[in-house]
């Protein structure tokens, strides 16, 4: 009986030891993040007619996926020889980020991946002045400001890295597809919050985020060790062996 028990314990240890040998574990910090975009204020320094403020909060569901909510404000003015345009409002984007880095590489400090967003924008858009000229003369008119709602989706590849403890930096490219700009087909919004040029069906943008993050939980993640690649020498030896056999 004692021998059987000892044998069982040995088998258990062997199996668990084997399991430990085949798999590594890392302690992966799951985090809550809050970030602000510095690209918008940076643009404002050179273009005082385009104030865009934006921030986000994200919550790690696991080592691969995070829930993200973004929100922002836009005050946009545009003027050219034949019209003036104003757009002011707020937007929010909801979505997820997927980390393409392996947990062992990411370690909760580095992120390189892709996100998906649904964007909703509520804004006031109007044209206080426009001018049209043809054979009959010049007509000056305006289009009253109206509250509109825009919808769009985004694909957001990007990177982020931890510079100091609890402090990260990174950029995100925004590839946008307009669902609805909120205007009728004749008077689409020239520019609206969160999206950009509402005349175009697609748009692109970039955000550069400074992020503060804090760990809310540590998760044990099992990682598979990399299978060592065969060296050239081994290949050469096996080739020689095959040649010898011939």
């Amino acid at each position, binding site marked *: 009986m004692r021998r059987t028990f000892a044998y069982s314990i040995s088998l258990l240890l062997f199996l668990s030891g084997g399991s430990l040998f085949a798999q590594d574990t890392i302690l992966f910090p799951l985090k809550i993040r809050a970030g602000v975009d510095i690209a918008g204020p940076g643009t404002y320094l050179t273009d005082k007619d385009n104030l865009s403020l934006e921030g986000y909060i994200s919550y790690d569901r696991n080592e691969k996926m995070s829930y993200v909510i973004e929100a922002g404000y836009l005050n946009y003015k*545009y003027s*050219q020889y*034949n*019209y003036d345009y104003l757009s002011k409002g707020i937007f929010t984007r909801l979505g997820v980020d997927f980390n*393409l*880095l392996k947990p062992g*590489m990411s370690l909760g400090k580095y992120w*390189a991946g892709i996100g998906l967003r649904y964007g909703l924008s509520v804004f006031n858009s109007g*044209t206080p002045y*426009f001018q*049209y000229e*043809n*054979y*009959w*003369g010049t*007509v000056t*008119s305006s*289009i009253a400001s109206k509250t509109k709602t825009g919808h769009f989706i985004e694909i957001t*590849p990007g*990177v982020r890295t931890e510079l100091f403890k609890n402090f990260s930096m990174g*950029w995100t*490219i925004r590839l946008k597809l307009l669902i609805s700009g909120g205007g009728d087909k*004749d*008077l*689409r919004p*020239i*520019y609206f919050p969160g999206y*950009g*040029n509402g*005349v175009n069906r697609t*748009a*692109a*943008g*970039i955000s550069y985020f400074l992020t503060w993050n804090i760990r809310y939980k540590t998760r044990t993640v099992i990682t598979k060790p990399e299978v060592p690649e065969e060296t050239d020498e081994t290949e050469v030896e096996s080739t020689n062996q095959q040649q010898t056999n011939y």
Partner: protein
Amino acid sequence: MMKLHSFLSVLLMTGISAIMISCAPEACFEETNAHLKASFYSYSTKKQLAPDSLTIFGLGQTAKIYSKAKNVQPALIPLNPSAGNCTLVVRINNVTDTVEFMYSSYPYLISKECGYTFLHTLDSQAFTQNNIDTILIIKPNITTANEENIRIFY
């Protein structure tokens, strides 16, 4: 890791290039005038026939839209967006008629670069019949697109 780094570098450069292109100020290359497009037809053969000489101008206007022009097909006629109707003097092969168009106008955004124009919806027309026999409305929506709006049979 190198592959990932290269991929991200390419992605960043592509994104920045796309943004630079999209942010660069562009010129307006689109049609900005919604002309009424009038094709000329022979009343006898019912086939397209450009006048040998065509003169068109607005009643009360000194400038001419066409002045003894040859082989005009179709004629591009601007409408007055600040009025609900306009009267044109149409001289086909030295025979003069007047044509009045009744329409409504509304603003239309062409693009950010081009700004706004006016489109029109043609309601009806009235004309003298010195040389013109019939005017048919084919497409009442007058836009910047190259579409025939009316047919003038003479």
